[in-house]
Every structure is written in C-alpha cells, then in structure tokens.
C-alpha cells in the first residue's frame, strides 16, 4: 500500500514537472456569485482561480482582503472556473501585515458560477496538506511564515497520538523544517528564522496535551533552508511525525 502511495506521489510530482508552476505575491480578489464567493488572483494580466469559500473542514482556506497573498500553484488544464484559470494544487499564504489596497470585491455575473466544492477526505488526498504513509507517519504542511494548524493538520496529529497510545510505542520523532519559495519572477522568499522551532513547539505541545509523555517526544529543528525551485516549495514548509515502535525485547541468555 505504501509503495503504491509512493508511486502516486512520484507520478504527481512528475506531472507537475511537465505542468506550468506559478508562484507570485498579489492582492487576492473575491468574486460574488449566485451561490458562494470564489477567490481569484491576477498575475501578468491573467486571472487565476484559487478556490471557493468553504468551511474550516475544507482543505482550501481562502485568502484575506486587506492582505497580500503568496500564491503557489500549478496551472490546470481545462475550462476556466469562476472566470479564472484554475491552479491545482494551490497553496495560498496570507501575509501578516495589512495592505489596504487589497480590497477588490467583484459583483456576481449571470454567466459566472462557483463550482460545487466536493468535501475532501480529512487527510491524504493528492492535494491535501497532510500526507500519511500509514498510521505511524504524518507530514504536515504549513502556510508560508505560519505555524497555524488547520483542522486537517490538527486532526492528523490527534490520530497519530491515538496510534502512539494504542500501539504502546516508545517514541515520536518530530522534525520541523523552515522553507522558502522561488517566485516566478525569480525573487526568493525565505521564511523567518524561528518558524521551524515554532512549528515544532506547537506540535509538541499538542501531543503532550493529548497525553503523550514529554519524554517520548524527540524534537529536531532543521535550521537550514533548502534551495527553492519554484515547484516543490510548498512541500518544504513542514513537520514530519514518526511513531517509533517499541524495541523488541531481547531474551536474556541464562
């Protein structure tokens, strides 16, 4: 099962290599529709579709007016959605500081409709920002310069804690990374220095709160930043979690 999953990920990445990746910083745009609003972004005169307004249970957390957003996505083939070329997968990271120029709300148009958003499974989907290779391992992906755990990522941590307790494991290895992003214009954004430590601390605190003994948690913070390529950058901002099984007891020879 794990091998099949690994193959799928390789195929996904290979497909991305052939696709056009885009990374840019812009003001997001919200478009009203007859149903739910959809979120767009403009880059070099083209409009891209990011996703729909949904609930906290969905994988796509919409951007914020009054803030710029880092958009990292792959240009998808097919029809325009909500007036924009869809980016799939897409990661949007809201910048913290306020930019009041980011205030565009487009009115609804008769011909533009928001697509229905199918509810995605909690984790593990090809574009989900949580990946698991089995009950003992999870990788959580984060927005740029952010340590916020979405409902999906926090649920994954909870499942891992449950697995730790049920399997009577001895240790959970937490490895936190700081990432970077190469924009399509060549600029490079690097996350703040202490963000990996903040991610590790947050996940650690949650695991302890869920009953995992602090002594069972091994934390590694990776300070180096990998060289961004404009393709895999959203997957560089991560925390990996791995439950280590109890070492088999070696019988003592008489």
């Amino acid at each position, binding site marked *: 099962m794990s091998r099949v999953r690994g193959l799928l990920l390789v195929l996904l990445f290979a497909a991305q290599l052939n696709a056009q990746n885009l990374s840019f910083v812009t003001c997001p745009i919200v478009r009203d529709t007859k149903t739910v609003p959809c979120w767009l972004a403009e880059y070099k005169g083209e409009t891209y579709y990011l996703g729909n*307004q949904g609930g*906290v249970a969905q994988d796509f957390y919409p951007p914020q007016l009054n803030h710029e957003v880092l958009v990292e996505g792959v240009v998808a083939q097919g029809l325009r959605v909500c007036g924009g070329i869809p980016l799939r997968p897409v990661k949007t990271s809201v910048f*913290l500081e306020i930019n009041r120029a980011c205030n565009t709300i487009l009115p609804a148009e008769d011909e533009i409709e928001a697509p229905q958003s199918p509810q995605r499974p909690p984790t593990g989907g090809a574009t989900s920002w949580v990946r698991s290779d089995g009950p003992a391992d999870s990788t959580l992906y984060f927005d740029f310069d952010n340590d916020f755990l979405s*409902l999906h990522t926090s649920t994954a941590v909870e499942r891992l804690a449950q697995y730790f307790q049920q399997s009577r494991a001895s240790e959970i290895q937490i490895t936190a990374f700081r990432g970077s992003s190469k924009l399509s214009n060549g600029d490079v954004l690097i996350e703040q220095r202490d963000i990996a430590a903040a991610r590790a601390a947050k996940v650690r605190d949650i695991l302890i709160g*869920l009953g995992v003994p602090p002594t069972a948690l091994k934390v590694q913070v990776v300070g180096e930043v990998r060289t961004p390529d404009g393709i895999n950058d959203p997957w560089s901002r991560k925390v990996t979690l791995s439950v280590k099984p109890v070492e088999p007891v070696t019988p003592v020879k008489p």
Partner: protein
Amino acid sequence: MKKVCLTLSSFICLAGLGGLVTAQVSQPQLQWFQAGAGVELPKELTFANAGGRLGILNADGPVNTKGHPFFEPLGINGRACVTCHQPSNAMSLAVDTIRERWQATNGKDPLFAAIDGSDNPSLPQDRETSHSLLLTRGLFRVGLPWPPAQNPNPEFTVEVVRDPTGVNRDPIWGLKSAKPTVSVFRRPRPAANLKYVLAPDNGSFNVKLGVLLDKDPATGKPVSMNMMADARATTLAIQAESAYRDHQEGKGQLRQDQLNRIIAFESQVYAAQVFDNGAKDLAEANGPGGLGPLNLLREAAGVLNTPAKPVFLTFDAWKASTEFRQSVARGNELFLNRTFWVKDVAHINSIGLGNPAKRACAVCHNAVMSGMDRAPGWVDLGTTNYPTWTEPKTWNEPGELPVFKLTCRADARPHPYLGRIIYTSDPGRALITGKCTDIGAITMGQFRGLAARAPYFSNGSARNLRELVDYYDRRFDMRLTTQEKEDLINFLGVL
C-alpha cells in the same frame, strides 16, 4: 396545570410554564432578590418585562435560599451571586432594575459597592455621577492586572489616552499604580441555560487557534471557553471563586460545599421568554420547539446548527399564524439564511473562512438553543475597537468609556485587520493572553431572555434590540429593510 399566584404589586406569577400565564401579581422579594433574603425560589416562575414575561425554571425543584451560597452574602460588601444574577432579569441584570435599586435605596444597595459598582472606587460613592456607567449602561468595572498573569511578556503596550471615569489614571486603581491594573466596563452575563454555554466543541481542538482547547483542571476534560467575555475563567468553579474575591470582596477561598451548591444551582436553572406581547404564549403545545425554558431543559447541548436542526429549531408553525408570529418566523429565516459580507472580524474571518465571507448570522451564532458559537466564541466583532466601535467617532462628542492605545511589538503577529496600533475601549481577550490578535475579541453571549436584560453587547451600548440590529446593519452594510429589522427584533424578543 397548577397555578399559584400571589396578589401583590409587581408582576410575578408562579405557574406551569407549559401554558399561558395570565395573572400578574407580585412578590417584591423575588422581583428584586435581596442577598440573604432567605425566601424560597419556586420551581417555576415568571416575571413581567417590557416585551412580555420571562420564565424561570429550576429543574431540580424549589430552591431553599436560606443559607444557600448563591443567595447569601459571603464576602464583606453585602453582595451575593444573586445580586448581579437576578431571576427577574434572566439571571443577569437589566439597567432598569439597577436604576430602580438606586432610587429605592438612595444608592445604598450593595449592588453599588465601590469596588466595581462605581466608575472609580476613589470617587465619592454617595453621588449618582460616580456610578454613571452602571446606572446608564449596566456596566460593572472589571479590573485586570497588567501585564496579564498568563503572559508576563505581552505583545503590546497599553497607554491610557482617554479616561472619563479617572480610574485608569488613578494612583491607587490605575495602570501606573502599585498594582498596575487596566479597568474595562462590562455587562454581567446570564447565569442560566449554562449547559449550552459550557458544552465544548466536538473533539479536543480549538479550531480557531489550531491548538488544544483549555482543560478543566479538576477533570482534565476540554472546556468550551465560552462563559466569560474574555474567557478568563473556564469553569463554574473558577468563575465562582473569582467572583467571590472580585465582586463580593471575599477573603480566602470558598469552601468546597459552597462551591458545590453554587454550581449545582447554576447548572439546573433555565431562563427564556414565555409570553410575548405580540406573539402571545411562547410555550404552548405544538408551538416552536426552541422557545421557553422547558424546551431548554429538554434539548441536548453542544449541537451545531444544521438544516435539519436550526439554531432555534423551526418556526414553521408560525408561518401561517398571526401577523406578529409570521414576522417572528421571517426573522428566524433571516437569521438562518440572509447572507451578507462578514468582513474584518478577527477569529471569524481570520480562521480559514476567508475575508470577507458571505455568510448568515447563524454561521457564527451556530450553537443550537443558545445562539453562541460552538467553537470558542471570542471574536472581534468591532464593538470596542476604533473605527467600528460603538463609541463616539469624534473627540468633541463626550465619551463614556476609557480609550486605550495599544501598540504591538514589531515581532508580534499583528491584529489581522487593525494592524499594530489599535485604539480600543476594551481589549477583551487580549487582556488575558497579551496577544495582539486577540485585541477587541469578546466572547459572544447567549440569546436567551433578551427581553428581560437590556442593554446589549458587553459594553451595554445597544439600549434595545433595535440598536443591536442597527449596529450589525451598519457594521456589515447589510442593507436591511425596515421590515427585515422589525422581523429580526421580533424574533430576538421571543427568545
């Protein structure tokens, strides 16, 4: 149906809450429940108010208040819990009641204790002007230590830039006193229907912060964090202890048996309107299933709004009823389904819903029967932060509340919609956490018994339900019609 009415002067009737209450009589010791009065609180009783009548249900039966720690003064200032949580006011306190007490006692009632029943304990306490915020807006002073105990290294500094009461610059009580204190002014919350207030969100997580919910230190179980305006006390036991010290000026700690009795009483009392002057009997058989205290007792807590189970259940039975009842049913539909752009509300827009989000009232007010947020419900609606606050927009208008200038550190995560310099009359949750993202965040209150406990909002700025609806209409550019406003007001009034 058993009905017991006492023939006195104001409007109290003891009756079965399942039917219409017709008699109007009084029992002054219940209309204003004096601390230590020692009278019995019946299982079911109603109180008249401007909108109709409020019902109180003690699910465990009549309460003998003699010696009961909720009703007896335990501290040094003569107050009891009941002083600020009056049955006639839905276990809260209406400003009309406060004014009546001032007139009846010439300001001598323990309600007006200097510690928090006045604008500033250093003012001459015999003057009405020294209690102006309590008398005009129903506000009690809440003095909170700065920096907060929870965060000795807060993300922002506090500067007092306007101090109409003088308390925040007071040498004894102020920010630069020996015990640096920030004083804000807030309404007391209803001590009723608490199973709904205390029911935690599903699971262990606070979805708004991406961290675990706080836990009850006694049980280790997650708590709702929805009880107080700033969520500083998360259990009834912690709240009772702090109220004993802060509001009753008690020394030491409550005894365990006292705590147990206070919690037991608070956990079984329900309050809701049972009669409305326009809609008439709210508790009739086959009526809307969400009205009246008996339905509050029956329903389960911790249920999320869904089409199958809307927040206050359905009003279908009233859609073809009298004109007023049809208006209430339309108000319920507006509450559930009328979308508008919810914009710049920290801890709503900033938690994954997007800013703006096209939503209806019930998306945030989503807990069945209470209208609170099932997740921890502290949000910066904007009532206390400039420029959307409820206070005067310009300097030349007299302001009643203090104004603080908060400046966030450069390395802190700023408030998502107001940035790093924020003017506020109440920093809300941020006075507990010390976080910039929490500035102005106030826990939303329950919707029950509203007709019995004006004014509204934590700062008492909405004198009536129209002013409350008007605030939302302005804040979110809802463009409600006059009829829609009327429908919403009628709907809120019957809860």
